[in-house]
């Protein structure tokens, strides 16, 4: 049997053997519950995606159902932040914005801010990127102009400036934002944790992963490794397995945020979410319909809702 045919048969068996040792590669497939079981109250958790786009909502919902508390959440925020706030999981929020995109203001975020319920670190969105990048590079800070002269310094009194040793310029020293864990949602992944983005923008998901001690990638579909590059260029493989601790197969796992090209944002559902969020009774009903059940129940309720809407129109 030739070396090539051995490799081929191994791939078809979905068990990648090291050519010399013959030991199977690490398997990282997990359930959402198993991911949550690895998290602890008080942790700092980064969430990938952007606004109401490609958020790891299956994992967010799993955290909402757990007994985790006092989390510090770092996010380019959308309904991930809203759901976690509504579930009382957040002690501190680190963000540049929180928005539902097609609905500019996130109602749970507004309520939490306006009641003073949470501690916040509001940064320029570029500062957030540099904080994640500094953590990824194991640096204490990275210099930037962003934030200088603004009230970001007033409301974050721990921020410091740093003088350039080359020309004396005094710049903002954006501190590293190390994460205990990161959760992101990809289009495809293999069982080893190589993950692929088929949509228009990878956002900062790889930085969330590399800034974290442990990163968990949910994806629309787990596929054999060769399939990842069979129909898409290798440049879509933005996340590599060395960054990843666990892989979760979660079809519609970004719902109701977008996950192009598999699906767009569920605008109708988002409108229902935002409408319910601004009224306690309506929110209780929304929770009973969609959130006080497991992920299978959630997805079934979403499907039933969509069928009912289509039937009515």
């Amino acid at each position, binding site marked *: 049997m030739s070396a090539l045919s051995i490799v081929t048969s191994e791939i078809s068996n979905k068990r990648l053997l090291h050519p010399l040792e013959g030991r199977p590669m690490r398997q990282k497939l997990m359930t959402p519950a198993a991911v949550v079981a690895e998290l602890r109250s008080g942790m700092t958790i980064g969430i990938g995606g952007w606004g109401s786009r490609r958020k790891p909502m299956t994992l967010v919902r799993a955290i909402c159902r757990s007994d985790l508390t006092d989390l510090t959440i770092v996010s380019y925020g959308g309904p991930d932040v809203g759901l976690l706030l509504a579930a009382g999981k957040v002690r501190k929020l680190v963000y540049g914005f929180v928005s539902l995109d097609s609905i500019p203001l996130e109602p749970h975020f507004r309520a939490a801010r306006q009641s003073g319920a949470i501690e916040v670190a509001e940064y320029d969105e*570029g500062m957030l990127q540099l904080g994640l990048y500094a953590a990824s590079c194991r640096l204490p800070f990275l210099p930037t102009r962003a934030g200088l*002269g603004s009230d970001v310094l007033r409301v974050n009194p721990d921020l410091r400036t740093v003088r350039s040793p080359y020309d004396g310029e005094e710049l903002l020293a954006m501190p590293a934002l190390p994460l205990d864990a990161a959760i992101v949602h990809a289009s495809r992944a293999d069982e080893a944790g190589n993950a692929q983005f088929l949509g228009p923008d*990878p956002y900062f998901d790889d930085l969330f992963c590399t800034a974290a001690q442990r990163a968990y990638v949910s994806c629309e579909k787990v596929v054999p490794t060769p399939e990842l590059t069979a129909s898409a260029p290798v440049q879509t493989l933005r996340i590599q397995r060395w960054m990843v601790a666990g892989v979760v197969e979660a079809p519609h796992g970004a719902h109701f945020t977008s996950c192009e090209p598999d699906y767009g944002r569920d605008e109708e559902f988002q409108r229902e979410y935002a409408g319910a969020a601004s009224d306690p009774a309506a929110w209780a009903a929304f929770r009973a319909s969609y959130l006080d059940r497991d992920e299978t129940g959630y997805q079934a309720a979403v499907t039933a809702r969509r069928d009912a809407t289509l039937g009515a129109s």
Partner: protein
Amino acid sequence: MTGAATRAEVCVVACAEAWRADGEILASPIGLIPTIGARLARATFSPDLLLTDGEAMLGQGTWAIGSQPQVIEGWMPYRAIFDLIYNGKRHVMMSPSQIDVYGNVNISAIGEFSRPKAALLGVRGAPGNTVNHPTSYWVPRHTTRAFVQRVDMVSGIGYDRAAQAGEPASRYHELRCVVSNLGVFDFVTSGHRMRLVSVHPGVTVAEVCEATGFDLVVPDDVPLTREPAARELQLIRSVIDPGGARDAEVRG
């Protein structure tokens, strides 16, 4: 296709003028009227501008609100936008909730930051934008609640803050213009206080001053904002915004 320009169309052209001298940089309009304006600018007097589809693609040609560009000329995910911001080859037009006489703006929170009366978006990219490249503003409803003595949370920095923060903040800081539904403004005055550049047809200087919560610099002669040219009206009405979305944002 005929008829006098509406206020919305005057505003579109005033926004377009913000990008007139910019050359080959990324025009980043936030919101509807600036978006129509940026596409109009490129279709007419600023052909070298780069424009995104609002997501991650750079598009060529002129496309309608709600549709996609036919020719993609580049990839501009958020990470590339951030790199571009630091490089400076960008002119953004944002839409603040509050703006003051020196051009400080607030898009973050109304009231005390620790427990705001109204939480808005967050500072987003405003701090970084304003210290890295030219910035302009669009205010669809010019009132004393928008044009204020003092903004509650300085998100994008004005000329006084840039000067106080020193060379690293002021070196690339430049506020080009402010367009509202009433007029056009800039900061080309001693001390960089906001100046009334023109009032839109049908608006008086007194109306503008009354709707402004601070003392504007008002020259002796305030011209009218220029009317859209026939070619511009044709582009706005039949190519860029055939659905008339602009009329919902600015009436009259």
